[in-house]
């Protein structure tokens, strides 16, 4: 790869407020997807108290140094960056050791991100849950953000709070990913609909990820879905998010409506070919 740097790196915070809605999964999958599109991508695990981005990427056993050592100048940045085996465009930088909760300050974060940004096109920061110090540290260095939420009132409420905090910090643009969408429940209005969520959060939607068992499988295996490109719906959604981030115009479809359309189309086809009803 050319050492010539063109545009400055995009530094994107991935956050949600509530835990367990899919920040880390999105970071891992988006990282792989962007790397596959040829972008030099660094994923930074800012959730160093309970870090698990390395698990999802299958890189746990290859971590030797962390950002902590880089800042203390006991190692070089290249040594701390863990390159992904199958996807050399992607590197992981763990923020620190789980036992050292005290050391990281927003200034540290800004320094390390600035170093990483020199050699990357995309820096994805996996934010810890909550809105306390962990969030403040992670947000300190971010220029833009993706807020991920699920169609549940509690997740939407927390996301709303986080968006408010991001706005006061001047992080922009902030985009939205709606995760774990169950089209059938949405269509029958047992679940918050896409419109209900965007209505409250009022953010541009950059992706809709349907509930997909493959996500659980891939998480446990340490191979993000976007890596083997097995065409599962969630993998497709993550790839689309990556392409939309790069500015490609890929239309978003509301799956609760798309499904209806598909069924109607199928019924039509049956009707035509059989002439039954």
């Amino acid at each position: 790869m050319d050492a010539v740097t063109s545009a400055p790196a995009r530094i994107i915070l991935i956050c949600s407020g509530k835990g367990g809605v899919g920040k880390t999964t999105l970071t891992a999958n988006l990282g792989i997807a962007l790397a596959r599109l040829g972008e030099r991508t660094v994923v930074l695990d800012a959730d160093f108290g309970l870090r698990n981005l390395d698990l999802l990427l299958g890189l746990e056993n290859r971590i030797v140094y962390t950002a902590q050592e880089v800042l203390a100048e006991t190692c070089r940045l290249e040594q701390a960056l863990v390159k992904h085996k199958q996807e050399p465009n992607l590197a992981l930088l763990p923020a620190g050791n789980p036992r050292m909760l005290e050391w990281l300050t927003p200034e540290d974060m800004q320094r390390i991100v600035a170093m990483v940004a020199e050699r990357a096109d995309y820096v994805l920061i996996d934010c810890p849950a909550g809105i306390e110090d962990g969030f403040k540290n992670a947000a300190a260095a971010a220029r833009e953000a993706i807020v991920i939420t699920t169609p549940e009132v509690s997740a939407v409420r927390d996301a709303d709070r986080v968006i408010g905090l991001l706005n006061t910090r001047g992080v922009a643009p902030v985009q939205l990913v709606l995760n774990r969408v169950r089209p059938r429940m949405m269509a029958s209005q047992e679940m918050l609909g896409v419109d209900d969520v965007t209505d409250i959060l009022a953010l541009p939607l950059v992706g809709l990820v349907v509930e997909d068992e493959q996500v659980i499988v891939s998480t446990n295996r340490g191979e993000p879905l976007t890596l083997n490109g097995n065409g599962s719906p969630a993998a497709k959604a993550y790839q689309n998010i990556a392409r939309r981030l790069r500015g490609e115009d890929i239309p978003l479809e509301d799956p609760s409506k798309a499904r209806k359309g598909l069924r109607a189309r199928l019924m039509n086809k049956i009707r035509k070919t059989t002439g039954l009803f």
Partner: protein
Amino acid sequence: MAAALIQAVDDRQPHLLRLPVQQGSASALEEVRYALGSRHIRAGSVVLEAGRWPLRLPELRQLQELLAPLRLDLIRVAGDHPETLVAAAALGLEIDPGPPQTIAAPAPAVVASDLLVHRGTLRSGDHLQAEGSVLLLGDVNPGARISAAGNVLVWGRLRGIAHAGVAGDRNARIVALQLRPLQLRIADMVARGPEGLPPPGLAEQALLVDGEIRIDPAAPDFSG
């Protein structure tokens, strides 16, 4: 502020020609000439809102002559000044004396002094407080709070918690384009918000009636 010409949106409505509050030495005709400028205006009828300007017969004639080449036809004159109305009637125009008491003049002075205007949506966790009344141009999301010693006016959807009359003013009210708060408070009274969606396109207000918070369609004459 100069005169304003508000064009009709379709052929059936007349254009609206509104004279500014009278000040300085400019005559009504100069104001109108300035408002018309070199704009292209669709031919049609015009209603003049003269406000407090005293317009006499010759002035109205001149105005008609000014409008004629543009194929604009003065049909009605609304205003407060009796002289204007008499002159308009003499020319065979419709007249509209307007509301007996001016609402526009005293109200803004009072409102402007203690009205906090905030633009933007209040998100969960935010709390906007005002010493007087507050006008929010945006939504109040669930989990957000808005409170004021005076009235709470929301030009948007109110879905959080609103508290009017924080200091105990039992005449304070809460007005919103969509009034579906989690909780409403006026002075020391508390009420849960109504359930279900309101009829669309209807602003609502909450106020204390006999010690209880009641929600009604917002009165159109409401002014802060």
